[in-house]
C-alpha cells in the first residue's frame, strides 16, 4: 500500500483508539474535576467492564448483539455501583486526603485485578462483535485520466469499528447535555466550584461525590464494553488505559472536559498512527517520551494558560 492510503487506514485506527480513550479519560477527568481525587484504580474499572461484557455474552449465548446490548447497560451499572460503594466506605472515610487516596486506590487496583485473576483466570477471552462487515474504502489518485477513484487492497475498516466511533461521540454528547442541562449536572458543577458553599446551600455533597465516582467508573466500563470485541478481555488490560487516560487528563488541563476530549483525539490518533509506521515497542517508547516531555515542559497542559 502506498503512503496515502496507509495514512488514512492509520488515522481510522487512531480514531477508534481516540474514541475509547475519550470515554475512559472523561471518567477520570470528571472524578478529578469534581472531587480532586486521583483515582489510580480507574484502569481496573475499565478492565471490569470488559470482563463483565465477556461474562454477559458467554452466559446468554444466542446472537452476539443481545449480549452486547445487555452488557452495554449492565457493565456500567455494576461497575458504577461498585465504585460508589468503594467511595462511600473507603475514600469518604479518609476524607479524600490526597496521599491516602492515592494509596487506597492503588490498593483497590490490586484488589480488583487480583480478584479477577482468581475468578476470571489469566486467559485473554474474546467477545463476538454484534456485527462485523468489512467495508472497503476508496482512495483518490491523480493518474493519466485526471482524478480516479481506486480501491487499494487492504484499505478497509469493519462496520463495528465505525460504530465504536459513532457510539463514543453519541455518549459524550449525551454526557455533555447531562452535565450542562440536567439538575444532577448542576449539582455536580456546584460541588466542583466550591464544595463548602454547595454544602451550605443544601447540596448533598457526600452523595454527589459517590455518584460522580460511580459515573467516572461507569464511563470507563462503557469504553471497555465497546473495545472488547476488538481487543479481548484480560485481567491486566487496565494498565494502558490508566496511563493513557492520565496523560490525556493532564495534557488536556486537569479537570477540563473540552481539553480532555481534544487531548484524547490527539493522543489516540497519534498512538494509532505511530504504531502503524513503527515497531510497536519503539512506537510506545517514542510516544511515552514525547508525552512525558510535553508534561515536563507544559505542566499546565496544552490548553491550560501559563501563569503570569
Amino acid at each position: 500500500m502506498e503512503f496515502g492510503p496507509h495514512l488514512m487506514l492509520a488515522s481510522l485506527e487512531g480514531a477508534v483508539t481516540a474514541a475509547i480513550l475519550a470515554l475512559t479519560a472523561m471518567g477520570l477527568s470528571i472524578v478529578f474535576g469534581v472531587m480532586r481525587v486521583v483515582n489510580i484504580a480507574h484502569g481496573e474499572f475499565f478492565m471490569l467492564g470488559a470482563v463483565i461484557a465477556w461474562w454477559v455474552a458467554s452466559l446468554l449465548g444466542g446472537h452476539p448483539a443481545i449480549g452486547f446490548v445487555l452488557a452495554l447497560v449492565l457493565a456500567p451499572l455494576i461497575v458504577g455501583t461498585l465504585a460508589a460503594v468503594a467511595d462511600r466506605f473507603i475514600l469518604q472515610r479518609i476524607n479524600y486526603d490526597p496521599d491516602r487516596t492515592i494509596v487506597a486506590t492503588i490498593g483497590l487496583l490490586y484488589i480488583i485485578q487480583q480478584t479477577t485473576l482468581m475468578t476470571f483466570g489469566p486467559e485473554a477471552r474474546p467477545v463476538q462483535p454484534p456485527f462485523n462487515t468489512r467495508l472497503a474504502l476508496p482512495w483518490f489518485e491523480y493518474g493519466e485520466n485526471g482524478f480516479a477513484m481506486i480501491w487499494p487492497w487492504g484499505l478497509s475498516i469493519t462496520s463495528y469499528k465505525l460504530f465504536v466511533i459513532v457510539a463514543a461521540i453519541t455518549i459524550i454528547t449525551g454526557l455533555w447535555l447531562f452535565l450542562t442541562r440536567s439538575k444532577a449536572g448542576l449539582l455536580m458543577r456546584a460541588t466542583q466550584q466550591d464544595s463548602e458553599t454547595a454544602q451550605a446551600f443544601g447540596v448533598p455533597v457526600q452523595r454527589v461525590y459517590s455518584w460522580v465516582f460511580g459515573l467516572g467508573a461507569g464511563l470507563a466500563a462503557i469504553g471497555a464494553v465497546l473495545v472488547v470485541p476488538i481487543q479481548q478481555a484480560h485481567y491486566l488490560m487496565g494498565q494502558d488505559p490508566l496511563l493513557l487516560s492520565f496523560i490525556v487528563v493532564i495534557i488536556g488541563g486537569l479537570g477540563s472536559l473540552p481539553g480532555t476530549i481534544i487531548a484524547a483525539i490527539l493522543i489516540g490518533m497519534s498512538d494509532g498512527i505511530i504504531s502503524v509506521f513503527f515497531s510497536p515497542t519503539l512506537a510506545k517508547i517514542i510516544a511515552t517520551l514525547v508525552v512525558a516531555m510535553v508534561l515536563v515542559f507544559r505542566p499546565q497542559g496544552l490548553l491550560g494558560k501559563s501563569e503570569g
Partner: protein
Amino acid sequence: MTNQHRVHLLHFGTIALLALLFFVLPAYHVGNLARIMVLATYAIGYNFLFGYTGLLSLGHALFFTAGMYGLGLAMTQFGLPSAPALIIGLIAACLVSAVIGFLALRTSGVAFMIVTLMFAQAGYLTILYFGTYTRGDEGFVIQQAKRVMFGIDLSSEVSRYFAALILFSICFLTVARIVQSPFGKTLIAIRENEERARMLGYDTGAHKLKAIIISGTISGFAGAAYALLFGYAGATFATVQYSIFPLLWVLLGGAGTTVGPLIGVIFMFYLIDLSSSITSAYMLIAGVALVLLAMFAPQGLAGTLRKRWFKWMP
C-alpha cells in the same frame, strides 16, 4: 540516656540483630533475610525521597534497574569483574536519576507521579526493545564463577548474607546521618512546607534534585547488589509493580522513619510468602494491606510507634 544515645542504640542494635539472626535462624529464613536486606536498601532509597522530601515517585523501578543492568551488562557484555561493574551500576543509577530528576522536577504533585511513571515505563520498554542484549522479560543469569568480589564468592550462603548486611548497613546509616544533618532537615522542611522553605532562602529546587539523585543512587545500589548476589537481571524489575513495591513497603513500615523501610519489607515479604502458597493472586494481599493502611494507619508501623511512644525516633 539522651535522645542521641537512643537513636544510636536503635540503629546499631538493628544491625547487630540482623547479624545475630544469621546464626539463629534456619537456612530458609536466612536466605529470605538476605533478599529482604537488599530490598530494604531499595526501600531506604525510596523513603529518602518520599518519606523525608515528600516527593511521591512512581518510577523508582527505573533507578533500581539502572543499577541492576549497569552492573549486569557490564559483567555479561563487557566481561568486567564485579567491583568495577558495581561502580558502573552506581554511576548509571546516579546519571539516570540526575536526568530524570532534572526533567521531572519541573512538575509537581500528580504530574510528578505520572511523569516519573512514564519515564520508568519508557525505561522498561527500552529494556524490551534491546532484547538482544537484555533478553527482555526472560532476563539473564550472571554466572556463579563471575560473582566474586575481592576473592570472596558472593553466591555462597554466608558471604551473600553478610554482603547484603554490609550493603544495608551502609545505606541505612548514611541515610540516618543525612536526615539528622542540616541538609536533611532542610529536606524535611521542604516536605512540610516548600514555599516557606524557599522564603527562608533555601534553594528548594537544588535540594530536591540532590534528594532524587541520592535516592536514585541508593535504589540503583540495591539493584546492582540484587543482580550480583542473586545472579539474575530481568525486565520484571522494571515494571510498574516494582515502582509501587517500595511505596508499599515504606508506607507499611512508616514513611519518614529510618527503620520503617526494613520493617515494611519484612512484613510484606512474609505476608506475600505465606499467601502465595495459598493463591497465585498473592498481590491481593498487597491491595488489602494498602487499603487498610490508608484507612487506619497512614503513618505505618514505625510511624505509629513514634507518634504514640517513641517521639525521639528519627
